[in-house]
Structure formats: C-alpha cells, structure tokens
C-alpha cells in the first residue's frame, strides 16, 4: 500500500465508522427494542460522538492556523511596504491587548466592530440596488427580465401602502408557490450533490488527501 493508500484507507475506515454511528446510533428501536438493544445503540453512537468531538476541537483550533497565516502573509506585506497590512496587524494586536488588559471588556466590540460591520452591510444595499439596476446589461434576455420583474414585485409588495395591495397579493403568491418550488429544487439539488460528493469522499476517492 502506497502512501496515498494509507490516507485513503484511513478515510474509508473512519468514514464508514462515523457514518454508521451517526446513522444508526442512539435508536434502540432500530434493533428491535430488545433489552440489549439500548446498550447496543449507545455503543454504536459512541465512536461518532468521540470523532465528532475530536474534529470539532480540531476545527476550532484551526483558528491558530488562520492567525498564523494572517501574520505570515501580512508581516511579509508590511515588509514590502504595504500600509493596510500594517493597519490590520495593528488592529489585531490592539484588540488582543485591550481584551487582555481590560479583562474581557467587550465594549470595543460595540464601539468598533459592530459599527464597521453594520456599515459594511448597509453598503451592500447600495451595491445590490446598483447591481440590480444593471441586470439587463449583463443578461439582456427573458431570464433577466423575469428576474428584474420578480425583484420589483417583491420590493413593492413589501411596502405598507394601501394602493399597492394587489402587488402585495402577487408577491405573497410568488413567495408561497413559485419561490417555494424553486427553493425546494435548489435545496434538493444541493442535498443530492452533497450526498454524492460526500459518499465519494468517504470512499477514499478524493484528491485532497491522496498524496
């Protein structure tokens, strides 16, 4: 077995174990509800629990990788004289310093983090409207037209104006029927893709951990 084989085997074994454990664990009814089935169900659920906990901690710890990457990339850029990377590093260091010296005072969050993030989200409004106004420039076809029409109907339908009551009725119907149908289809499609790609990853067929 080559080296790629080892990780593929690990993937297969761990994947099978986790999947079985998550799928079948913790439901005594599945084993006929016999006296011993409760113990069996619990035992079956255990490996899934442990692996889940392990991976959750690994994922949480990966923030350290993120910070390492941030520092590596931006220290390098500062060395090349990039001003904004210096701003980023300074802000990072200051926040850590603030939090440590002020014993967990999170008012910095309210003073800086929330306003910037809210303001950025507000900017999205302008970007979205401006982009929405130019849909027909990129997609000058029936689909662009349909898209714009739906956007306008839903926007107008949200207005609390009595004159627009019929538009509101259309908008409600749109939401209840076609939008519901389309959303279901996209969700089903993504779920299907998730299952197929997930199963393939578990079969040890993915490039990412082979070699």
């Amino acid at each position, binding site marked *: 077995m080559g080296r790629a084989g080892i990780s593929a085997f690990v993937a297969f074994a761990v994947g099978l174990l986790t999947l079985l454990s998550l799928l079948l664990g913790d439901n005594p009814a599945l084993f006929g509800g016999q006296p011993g089935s409760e113990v069996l169900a619990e035992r079956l659920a255990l490996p899934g629990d442990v692996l889940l906990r392990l991976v959750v901690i690994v994922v949480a710890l990966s923030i350290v990788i993120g910070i390492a990457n941030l520092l590596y990339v931006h220290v390098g850029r500062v060395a090349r004289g990039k001003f904004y990377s210096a701003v980023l590093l300074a802000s990072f260091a200051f926040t850590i310093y603030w939090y440590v010296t002020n014993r967990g005072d999170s008012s910095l969050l309210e003073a800086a983090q929330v306003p910037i993030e809210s303001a950025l989200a507000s900017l999205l409004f302008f970007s979205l409207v401006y982009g929405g106004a130019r849909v027909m420039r990129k997609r000058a076809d029936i689909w662009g037209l349909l898209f714009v029409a739906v956007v306008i109907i839903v926007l107008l339908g949200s207005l609390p104006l009595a004159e627009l009551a019929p538009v509101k009725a259309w908008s409600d119907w749109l939401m209840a029927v076609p939008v519901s149908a389309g959303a279901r289809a996209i969700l089903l499609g*993504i779920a299907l893709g998730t299952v197929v790609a997930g199963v393939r990853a578990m079969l040890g067929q*993915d490039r990412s951990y082979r070699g």
Partner: protein
Amino acid sequence: MDETTVQVYSVLFVMATVLLVFTARFFQKRPGRRRAQRQLDGLERITGWTTQSIESNRPLHLSFGGAAIGGDKTPAALAEAELFHQVIKRANAGDIAPILSMSAPVMIPLGQDTLRRAWHKGDGASRVIWYPPNLAYAGAVTASMADDKPAAHIMAGGFGIELALMLDGADRQGHPSLAVSDRLDGQAVAYALADHVLIGEELFVASGAVSEEGRGRNDAAVLDVWRGLIILGATVFLLLEFSSQLPLLTWQLAAAGAAVLIALGAVMYRRR
C-alpha cells in the same frame, strides 16, 4: 416519517449511491455512447481568463469564501478545491501564482495543498490568504484586490450576501468574475451581479466540465440517475396520493398513468 424509517431509508440511499459511484465509473469507460455535458455558462471563459492571466502577468483570484471542510459544506468544499485544481493547472504556464482566499481557517491546509499540487513552482504560502469570516473577508479581499489586480475572480464557495461587496468591487475595478455559491442568498446575489454564474449543484460538476478527467463526469452521471429516480418516484407518489383522495382516480388509473410516464421516460432516455 419516524426516526427509524428515516434511518433505514438513509442507509439504503447511501448504499445505492456507493453502488452508483462504482457503476458510473464502469459506464463511463464504455465507448460508443458519447454524451456531452450541458454547457455551463462561464466555464468556457475560464480558458480565456487563464490565458489572460498568463499573458498579462496578473494573478487569478480563486475564492473559497466560507466553504470549509469538517462541516456540512465538506463535499462542496472538495468540489470547489477540485475545480480550482483544474483552473490552476491551466494557469500553470504563467509566472504569477493564483491567489487563493478563504475565510475558514481549516481550509488553509487544503488551499495550500491545492496550490502545491497544481502549481509547480514555489511561492505557495503567501498566495493563500485567510481573512476572518463573512463581511471582514469580503471587505478585506475586495480592498486588497485593488492592489493585486487579478485577471479574473473565480468565486466558488460558500458566500452569503457579502458576495455583493466582492462582486461590486470586482465590477468597479473592471475585473471579470464567475461566481457560484452553495448558499441560496449568495446564489441570488451572484446571479444579479456576477458576469458569469453557475447555479446550485452545477458546482459539483464544474470541475468535470473544466477538465477532461472523468471524475467530475462520474459525479454528474450519478447525480443524473438519482435525479431521474427522484422525479419519477415523487411523481408516482403524488399520483398515488391523488388516487387515495379523488374518488375518480383509482389506484389502477394511477398505476396506468405511472406506467405511461415510465414508458415516456424510457423512450426519452433511449432517444438520448
């Protein structure tokens, strides 16, 4: 559906998928039945962009967004990594490595690995850039792209509405973009703002469309089989439901209808 039923169905579904994954590989090898993938808007552009990147010595920007392994987005993240792998391989002749950006730290090793595999030169680590999630990521990437001046943005990953900021930035700076998100809000934004867009599960077959390698196509085949079965099954189910509620529509009639539908489906399948 109670818990046990769901569990049993899930096991059956997974087993059937495993079976299909293997048989699809078998079918793909069979000569003579030439099929083509539906063309995906924008993917044809990738060749042009990679060439442009090589010639103008400007990097491609490949964005994972919030996609992450080790969560429910794992399959999507793998599909994106595979797509980026194919793209980077095409840009391989250039001097300037593509920039990979992501907002999930756990994706950094995967991103570095993708770059290393497909990009045969050094200079990997500083081309994989992480920013903290969502708006911070979108804002910082947009702002730093003003310096990096990428030849194109390929944003395939998990994006919410913050994608609007990135696409707007790309538009302002005059960079072309291809976007697809595995989240619906991001998808809607991508549809309106991106120059080219993939929708929903097209993400899972995009790598197969970019490269001639069979893997993505196998996935597409498996997905197609499942989709057909689901549509058929749901239709039969609905007819049966009707037959139980409408006195006129007996189950014999429903069965006949289902048979006709199946026959039609078979005919269509044959014709293709």
